């Protein structure tokens, strides 16, 4: 039976982890490679890097980081942030990313997703959707871009369907209402997208407790749960999340014996 995935996300800027990580005994809390290694040793099913480097000139640092991570970490690595053109995709994949996440560029040019999927395979193309509730309208969300600053006016559900149709391998769905709140995933949004599209959905935004992860994967129906701060802040380890899920009847890959 296919396991639900637990995916720690690391925000990186100019090759460094943005938020401090409280791993015991970490030599360099700012080194994404070391953190990714720790997560994978602890049972993470995949690792995601979100590059928030403002300028495009510093991309070399990211490629180097991806290369070093892929050399040591033997679980899939997704990299997103600033992916605008074919060269960005090919360079990240060449550096060792298994999947590349596309966000604003997909909105600017949906054909870009289709082209990349045809060129590199759907398995390598994730479309990230930042969705926010439309005030006063129940069950309606629009798509935001540019780090949540720009409302595109696109209906998030229709957009997810379109991206699945364009060859996205999976959808990384972030609730902008919940991101950073630790109030839990937007379960209605997650469930609505999960039920609307035939490809896997990774839920993101709002996890604060073990119960939040559980409900995202059950009531929300997500195929994978992505979280950042609960891991970085040292509240829970990946192994603790998995033990909780196993105790509550969710199929996950148990932390590995080594």
């Amino acid at each position, binding site marked *: *039976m*296919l*396991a*639900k*995935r637990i995916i720690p996300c690391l925000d990186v800027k100019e090759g460094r982890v943005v938020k401090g990580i409280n791993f015991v005994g970490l030599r360099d809390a700012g080194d994404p490679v070391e953190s990714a290694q720790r997560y*994978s040793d602890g049972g993470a*099913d995949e690792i995601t890097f979100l590059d928030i480097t403002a300028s495009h000139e510093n991309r070399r640092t990211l490629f180097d980081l991806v*290369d070093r991570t*892929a*050399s*040591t970490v*033997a*679980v*899939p690595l997704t990299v997103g942030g600033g992916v605008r053109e074919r060269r960005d995709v090919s360079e990240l*994949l*060449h*550096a*060792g*990313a*298994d999947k590349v996440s596309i966000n604003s560029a997909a909105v600017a040019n949906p054909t870009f997703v289709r082209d990349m999927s*045809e060129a*590199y*395979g*759907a*398995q*390598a193309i994730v479309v990230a959707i930042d969705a926010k509730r439309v005030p006063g309208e129940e069950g309606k969300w629009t798509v935001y871009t540019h780090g949540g600053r720009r409302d595109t006016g696109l209906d998030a559900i229709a957009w997810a369907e379109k991206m699945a149709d364009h060859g996205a*391998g*999976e959808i990384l769905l972030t609730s902008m209402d919940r991101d950073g709140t630790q109030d839990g995933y937007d379960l209605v949004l997650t469930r609505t997208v999960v039920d609307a599209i*035939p*490809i*896997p*959905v990774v839920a993101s935004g709002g996890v604060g407790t073990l119960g939040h992860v559980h409900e995202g994967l059950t009531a929300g*129906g997500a*195929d*994978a749960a992505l979280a950042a701060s609960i891991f970085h802040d040292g509240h829970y380890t990946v192994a603790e999340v998995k033990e909780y899920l196993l105790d509550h009847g969710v199929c996950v*890959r*148990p932390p*590995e*014996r*080594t």
Partner: protein
Amino acid sequence: MSAGRVAIVDLGLGNLHSVAKAFERAGADPELSADPEVLLRADRLVMPGQGAFKECAHALAGEIGEAVRAWIDSGRPYLGICLGMQALFESSEEAPGEKGLGIFRGTVKRFASDLLDAEGNPLKVPHIGWNQIDSTHPVFEDGEWYYFVHSYYVVPDDESLIAATADYGGPFCAAIARDNVLACQFHPEKSQHAGARVIGHFLGDVSWS
């Protein structure tokens, strides 16, 4: 026994970095090549798979495909991964009319779109993530978890080829083994320690026939 020279078939279809790195971690010094001479000089051959069956079939229609066939005939160890497994069969629903290498009789099928999980929810395609295998084969570990990412799976005519199955709306073929040929639908290079052990077996002198 030393692993000897390991060659990775480069069909120019995608990222071979992960596979190369996994072999490096296992102590090998793999060479990526599209040159039949280089491939045929190696002691072990690995064919990873990415991209689509159609492009793969086209790439194998020429001299590289002949080299892979000659390699397998020579009795030296072959490891196919994902599309490198599917390409060993005759045809695929992904690209009707395109021919695989036809080393084994059988086809490659797509997961049906109406499969349901235990709770009655529709199963997503592609099948992405960690799944557990059933196997009695010495190279694979019964009950172990490996990373899969695919929409298609092989259906060998000869069921005795099947070395492992996994369950996704029903059992499907997760690995095959016959004589010098080993191939898996999952990605050992992405399957952490469990995957590293598969690669270790391939590089070692374990007999898997």
